[in-house]
């Protein structure tokens, strides 16, 4: 028997992220059975209630000490992953990060592997694409004033400038911010060619989108660039036509066209009455990684054995082919460039360009 301790934010502000990761995990187990290499897989869920590294660390300790967990997984938020990292190192247990997207996470313990994304991976790619192919040389950036936002801002600006673009201004917005009109007005005053946005998912994307529309910023004239969250499914739904023509770079959308994905989406919908998102796919791929690694080690859940097994592992995920960089244990994947469009009666993100085999640019730069 193998126990996987899943640490997530199941309650509080980030409850939905935890729920979706969980859905991904459950769906994978439903499809692939709960026995691998002759061992029964048991999931133990723990709730951190939010970005609490101390709680995450305690839960990780308890999972290992009390519940005798063999593998740690989950981690919606970077602080959670960072809190548990030292435990995985000390206990020599595989730790599968299914979301937390700050670059440094995987460097904190040799037993960490990430299957989700790193923010710079997206922001950097988008910036380069915007200058080279997107036809914009002047950008304004708007990000939420917290770790991931600052990360995204840094990555975007750096890559944008390196590609020959110019950053005309930037603003960091409070994390809890119900009204964006002032920030949008500021951006508008500078009349930029494009605006890059990073804000966490939830209620804000729609609010920001509506603020753009109210201020008369037309995505047809001013390119609105962003990562995936600001144009996620609920945001688009609530914005309606106002979302049309917004451009984003992201690694997964439920509209991705592939057989694997359409099966996945169908199964997911049947089970949970909603569409999967990148959290769900993170959970799903994380489980795949664990299953495959266990098959390779023949059910040996020892941390070193598992880590050796996952290095370089490559597989087809609903988002396309992804693989684990053996040096950084970080995910390498395709970044899609999408535009919000009307397809039939639905308003959805449509992929129209892609950049393959994107590694985390931060760790790549560090190596140089």
């Amino acid at each position: 028997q193998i126990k996987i301790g899943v640490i997530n934010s199941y309650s509080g502000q980030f409850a939905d992220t935890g729920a979706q990761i969980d859905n991904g995990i459950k769906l994978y187990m439903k499809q692939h059975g709960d026995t691998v290499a002759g061992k029964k897989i048991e999931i133990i869920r723990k709730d951190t209630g939010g970005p609490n590294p101390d709680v995450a660390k305690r839960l990780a300790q308890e999972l290992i000490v009390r519940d005798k967990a063999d593998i740690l997984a989950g981690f919606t938020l970077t602080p959670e992953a960072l809190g548990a990292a030292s435990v995985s190192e000390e206990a020599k247990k595989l730790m599968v990060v299914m979301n937390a997207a700050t670059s440094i996470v995987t460097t904190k313990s040799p037993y960490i592997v990430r299957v989700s994304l790193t923010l710079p991976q997206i922001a950097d790619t988008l910036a380069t694409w915007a200058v080279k192919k997107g036809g914009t040389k002047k950008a304004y950036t708007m990000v939420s004033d917290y770790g991931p936002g600052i990360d995204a801002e840094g990555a975007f600006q750096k890559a944008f400038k390196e590609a020959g673009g110019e950053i005309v201004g930037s603003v960091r917005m409070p994390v809890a911010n119900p009204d964006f009109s002032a920030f949008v007005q500021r951006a508008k005053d500078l009349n930029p060619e494009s605006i890059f946005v990073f804000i966490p998912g939830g209620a804000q994307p729609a609010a920001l989108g509506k603020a753009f529309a109210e201020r008369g910023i037309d995505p047809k004239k001013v390119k609105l660039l962003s990562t995936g969250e600001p144009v996620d499914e609920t945001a688009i739904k609530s914005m309606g036509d106002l979302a049309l023509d917004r451009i984003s770079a992201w690694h997964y959308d439920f509209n991705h066209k592939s057989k694997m994905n359409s099966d996945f989406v169908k199964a997911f919908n049947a089970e949970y009455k909603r569409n999967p998102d990148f959290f769900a796919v993170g959970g799903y791929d994380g489980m795949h990684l664990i299953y495959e690694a266990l098959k390779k080690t023949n059910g040996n859940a020892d941390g070193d054995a598992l880590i050796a097994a996952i290095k370089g592992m490559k597989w087809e995920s609903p988002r396309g082919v992804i693989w684990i960089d053996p040096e950084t244990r970080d995910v390498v994947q395709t970044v899609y460039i999408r535009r919000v469009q009307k397809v039939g009666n639905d308003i959805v993100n449509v992929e129209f360009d892609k950049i393959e085999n994107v590694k985390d640019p931060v760790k790549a730069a560090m190596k140089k």
Partner: protein
Amino acid sequence: MLPPVFGVLFDGIAYGMLLFVLSVGLSVTLGLMNFVNLAHCAFAMLGGYLTATLVNDFNWSFFATLPLAFIAAATASIAFERVFYRRLYRAGDLDQVLLTIGIAFVSVAIAAYLFGTAQQPIQTPPLLRGAIDFLGLSLGKYRLFLIAIALVVTILLVVGIEYTRFGAQVRAAVDNQRMAGGLGINVERTFAVTFALGSGLAGLGGALAIEIVGLDPNFSFIYLVYVLIIVSVGGLGSIAGSLAAAILIGVSDIAGKYYFPELGAFLIYLVMVVILMWRPSGLFGRR
């Protein structure tokens, strides 16, 4: 063409109105009744989910759901009042805090169970979408709608509570329940009605807020701080005070974010701290 400062002013007032509709109910329960109702936003959430469900799943008109949001929250609150709140009117603030936080917790769990943890987007009617152009300013229609509602609610409440015998009875009962009862005031009924009114307004506020701040189970907690700020800055027991506070906070928040974005997150709290230090009982407070 009007200079941008008018735009900022308009946005600020409109933002203030959002805060106002969310908090005016608390201004009734906490301000008038002195009941520390931290479950306020739970009643708002109830209104919100009702509206979202009716609009999304039953294709109701958004406008038609608004009175229902009020009624539903008011009705639910009467039940709560009977079972829980009533027994705590005389208890200390701290017991009230504990009870209402408990209720808020439960509401979050129930909402998550019934509606899931995802956001509940709603599409407002076309009438309220987009903006109208006024001397070069683009005024969001929904914001104009909010301003109108806030003004109507304020006038109704000020007239209905602050200048009537009913209002005086509420205040009397809050000041001294024993004496109020001893004079023949039906304290229980007075409180129940006031409470239903406050919660109904919360429900209405919740329904109106979805368009701007969205709706998920955590709604019960996220806006609690803002709501408390408005009520305390306005002054306990004063509806007009809440309105003034909402405008002040809204305008200074928007203006701050526009002119000094670095201070964005600080400003609302700074304004509150400064005002409360200058006028401890709030702008219009009488106690």
